Every structure is written in C-alpha cells, then in structure tokens.
C-alpha cells in the first residue's frame, strides 16, 4: 500500500487467496474430472487423481438416459418464460421507476411474493395443474402435470418480481431529462418509452433476461414435483441417476457437467452485473 515494492504481507495475502480459491474451485474441478473417468476409476479407494479420459459417461447420459430431451425441455421452458418476464416486467418496472404507483407498497408486495418458500405454494399448484391438465384448454395449451406450460407459468411468476426489481434499477439510471427532451420533440409517452427509454435500457434488459434464464435452468423443486418424464427438465434429469438400485455416479457427473458448465459461462459473461443481479438491483457493483 505504502510503496510499489512487494512486501512480505503482499506475498502472504496472495498465497492465502490462492489457497482459498483452490478450495472453492476444487469441487468444480472434481466434477469435471470425474465425468471423464471410466466406471472402475470412479469407484476406487482411495480416489485416483490420474486416469485415462473417456467419453462413456456422456454417451450413456445422452443415449440411454434421454438427456437431449431434458435439455430441449429446459430450453423451451426457460426461453418462453424469460420472454414473458421481459415483456410484462419491463412495462411494470418502467412504470414503477418513473411514476411510482403504490408508493413503494406494490413494489414491496411484489418482492414478498419472491421471498415465498416454493414448498409452501407447491401443493396448490400441483392440485390446480392436475385439474387444468384434464380440461380441453389445458390440453391445447400444454398446461398440466408433466406439461411444459405449467413450468412456464410457474417460472414466469417466480421471475417477474426479480425482473421488475432489477430492471427498476436500470430504468432509474436513465436521466429523466432525456425523456423530457424527447417529449419536447413531440414524442408521446409511448413513443418515448419505445424509442428513447428501451434502447438505453437494453443492457439492463439483456442482463435481466440472462438472470431469468439461469434461474429457470437451475430451478429444481417445481420441476421435480410438476413433471414426470415428458416435460422433465435438466436438473431433475441429473437427480434421476439416483435409483433404488443405486447411484450411477459416472453418468450423473457427466449430466451435472452439462447442467452446470453452461451456467458458469453465462455467469462469467455477466460478471460486471453479477452483484447487481444478486441484490435485486440494490447494490450497483
């Protein structure tokens, strides 16, 4: 701090940092390494650190366990719910940022819906979707137990509060003067929103969309209860390698890698906004 020269304290700090990083990254390394191990290498005592890599586990996950379908389902559910969240969320969020309807109370109510423990509302969801699934509307819109529509609805509801809060912070960053001058140029309120506000908020909207996607991709509880096999998503697929007969560790780790690594890449791409997203926009980071 005082001088540019490297002090002993600096060296110690970096060493500690290195050790802490290794501890925190080790499980991810071990997951990836195990996924390339052949079955005998996975069940050795003590565990092996060196091995000949093989793709057998991935082959098993995709060919025998139908993992491609689960990825497709997840992409469908996550994608559609994110689009809905962005459409409804950006309108509402802009309104809260500019006009503050409800004086904070509605915003707070929205936040509490996000804080709800999923398990507390899952039984009603389960019963309602079971009913709806037997009606014609439910069949046509694919809403019901083990149908993607059910998860799309659930993820939209779960992500809307988050998206409204996060985008709120981005909309507030847009100077009001820009909107005023647009209005003086003869733009209406709606034109101003579309032509001036939305382009300026585009990075925020993109960040919100990626966070929503990540949430839907990683969600487990609702997917586990509301789907069986047709609409199964990736996280439930990973847990499916646990059976009464035992646990297929090899394919399980391969599936976990497929489930986790894309999100790690998303997170790295988002890192500038990570803190902002994690705090619902409260800390700018």
């Amino acid at each position, binding site marked *: 701090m005082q001088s540019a020269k490297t002090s002993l304290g600096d060296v110690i700090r970096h060493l500690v940092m290195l050790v802490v990083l290794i501890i925190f990254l080790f499980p991810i390394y071990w997951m990836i390494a195990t996924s390339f191990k052949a079955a005998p290498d996975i069940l050795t005592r003590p565990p092996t650190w060196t091995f000949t890599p093989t793709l057998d586990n991935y082959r098993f996950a995709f060919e025998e366990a139908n993992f491609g379908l689960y990825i497709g389902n997840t992409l469908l559910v996550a994608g559609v719910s994110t689009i809905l969240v962005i459409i409804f969320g950006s309108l509402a969020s802009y309104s809260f940022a500019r006009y503050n309807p*409800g*004086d*904070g*109370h509605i915003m707070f109510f929205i936040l509490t819906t996000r804080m709800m423990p999923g398990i507390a509302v899952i039984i009603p969801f389960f019963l309602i979707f079971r009913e709806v699934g037997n009606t014609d509307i439910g069949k046509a819109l694919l809403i019901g137990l083990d149908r993607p529509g059910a998860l799309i609805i659930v993820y939209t509801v779960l992500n809307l509060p988050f998206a409204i809060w996060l985008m709120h912070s981005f909309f507030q960053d847009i100077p009001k003067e820009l909107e005023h001058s647009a209005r003086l140029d003869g733009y209406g309120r709606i034109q101003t929103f579309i032509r001036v506000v939305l382009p300026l908020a585009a990075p925020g909207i993109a960040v919100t969309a990626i966070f929503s996607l990540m949430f839907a991709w990683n969600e487990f509880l609702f997917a586990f209860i509301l789907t069986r096999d047709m609409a199964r998503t990736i996280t439930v697929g990973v847990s499916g390698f646990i059976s009464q007969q035992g646990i297929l560790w090899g394919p399980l780790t391969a599936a976990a890698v497929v489930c986790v690594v894309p999100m790690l890449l998303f997170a790295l791409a988002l890192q500038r906004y990570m803190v902002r997203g994690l705090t619902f926009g409260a800390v700018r980071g």
Partner: protein
Amino acid sequence: MTLSEAWDRLFWAAIIVVLIGLVWIRFLESVIGPCDGPGLLVALAVGIVFFATGWRSAAARKKREMTETEAKDEL
C-alpha cells in the same frame, strides 16, 4: 390517512390478528380446551383497535398539519 399509510396499517393489523390467533391456539387452548370462536373475536377486536388507533392518530396529525399550514399562509 393516505391510501398507502392505510395499507401499511392494515398489513400490520392482519399480522397481529394472526399472531394472537396462533398464541391462543397454542397456549391458551391447552389450558382451557378448544374454543376458537372467542379466540377469533378477541384477535379481530385487537386488530380493529390497532387499525383504528392508527387511523385516528393519522387524522389528528393531518388536522394539525393543516392548521399549521393555514397559520403559515396567514403570516
């Protein structure tokens, strides 16, 4: 009382009503046996009193503020 203040007060009134109801069932009923009717009445009464006091103090405050601004205007 503004709408938002009223909502806030109502929210906390509801929280208090439920709390009294729960305490009633958990602790009082184990002594005097099941009787949820009176418990419900007591809880609701407390909630209404809580809301009403908030309402009245807000009304009084508003009246005071109004007279103060009137006094300022006259000055």
